[in-house]
């Protein structure tokens, strides 16, 4: 019988931007994300030309990225993802701007920044991530499925 072993491979500490607790699969990008014109708010999909995540949806995922860029419609585009039920489960980012601060607040997903380690470098797409924004912690969990080899 296979066993599933969860290993906490890293714990990051950051500053709360929006409180709350959430967990989910990580979606990680080194590229900044555009709101208006960069995502489809109906599906939570990145649509920006040449974006490394183009075509992927962040709905119910822990979105790990450097920060926001582009139009001042950023907050509204992410606000609409909440209205449509396709908002990210949590947001972890490294560069503070008014776009990302307001966007995170109105998306109402737990959010953190100002980390002791770089989440973009440390977390991989597909990792399971537990975010406790009130406590300021992020646990990165790698799930290994082990098939016993012995008799």
């Amino acid at each position, binding site marked *: 019988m296979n066993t599933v072993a969860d290993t906490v491979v890293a714990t990051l500490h950051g500053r709360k931007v*929006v409180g709350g607790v959430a967990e989910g699969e990580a979606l990680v990008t080194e590229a900044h994300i555009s709101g208006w014109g960069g995502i489809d708010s109906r599906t939570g999909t990145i649509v920006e030309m040449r974006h490394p995540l183009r075509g992927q949806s962040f709905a119910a995922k822990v979105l790990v990225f450097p920060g926001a860029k582009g139009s*001042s419609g950023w907050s509204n585009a992410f606000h609409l993802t909440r*209205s449509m039920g396709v908002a990210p489960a949590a947001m972890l980012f490294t560069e503070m701007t*008014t776009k990302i601060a307001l966007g995170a*607040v109105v998306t109402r997903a737990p959010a953190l920044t100002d980390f002791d380690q770089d989440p973009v470098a440390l977390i991989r797409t597909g990792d399971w991530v537990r975010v406790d924004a009130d406590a300021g912690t992020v646990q990165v969990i790698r799930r290994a499925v082990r098939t016993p080899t012995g008799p």
Partner: protein
Amino acid sequence: MQLNDDEKAMADGRDGPAVQRAMDLLLRYGEALGAERLVNTNNVCGTVSATTPFMRDFALSKGGMDAVFSEFNLDSDDVVEIPPVKTFTSHLQLGFDPAHAEMMGVSEDVVKFYRKGEGYIAGHGIQLMNTCTPYQVGNIPTRGEHCAWMESSAVVYCNSVLGARTNTEGRESTGAASLTGKIPYWGYHLPENRLGTHLIELDVEVTSTSDWGLLGYFIGEQVQDKVPVVNGLTDVPNLARLKHFGAAAASSGGVEMYHLVGTTPEAITREQAFGRNRVIETLRYGEAERRRAYEQLNHTADDHDVDYVMLGCPHYTIEQIWEAARLIQGRKVHVNSALWIFTPRAIKALADQNGYTKIIEDAGGVILSDSCSAMSRAAPKGTKVVALDSAKQAHYLPAILGVQAWYGSTAECIDAACTGRWAGRYA
């Protein structure tokens, strides 16, 4: 965050539930930023309108425009009655031009709902400027004035050219600011954050509007959201050139503040522009950089048959409309092409009065207001290839409409409209 007595009273509900919700949002937003306090503002530019079927349906099912404002301008959990705004508030561009809705493919019921919303907006004391360039039509903040503006091309103009102070705000924060006269004291409201970080030395002359678009596109890509200082200008740029320059730099990067040594108000000298900052990096802008910006802006295009020419991003000045009218007078827009020019309503009225609208319409072009093709996602039916004199629009439109875009001078764009062919070249 530290609140003064007046702010505490607003947060406690003294001025009613809508103001209370607005203060609640400003507190959450200010704390997210790490701001220590709020600052007074009496100059807000935002958007309230409902111009999409989603917004119309939201309003109809949840309680009208008060529901739209409560949710999308205050991030409130419940629908509250919205009082008239407390601060001078200007409305930015919209999702379509109600005077040309059919041409833009907008259904009549969406227009009807928008018209009702327009009454609501005016009734709440919000100025219906309906433009991305409020500084063209009566909202010109004073140097040092604290503002709360949306619209990246307007924000960069406000900070850099006018010397007023704003961050790039959003729909919700401008809604809250309009009811309270408050915005977080953070970022470009603080003098030390307005100082230059990168030096750009010009090795080529920058004179025409399309030159300024190329320079802005180069700088934005290089410095992202930092504060560039441009040195070595030979000509003083006019409003249209700086409008195109800032819009380009805010599109390829996220520039919200720049300095032009000897021209913009916080950069009388290079020393003033940088203040106590050290220069992080010096970049040179020469022939190679200029050519690369041109090629990047034209990288989506290879088909020379032009279906559509769009001018007016950001919204055209009266000087630009005059230029377009002179270029097209006595000519005709080609049967396979179309020409749409976007400008604020007030400038459209001036263009009507001066006869430019007639000249452009006689040639087969149209002057529209309130919107643009990127905002409305509207273009003449079947458009596959567009020609633009705006680096910002050339940056966004291929992604938004799935079209090819040519970038060039206004004259090259008018030629394309009249011949149906792109003959622009790097010059």
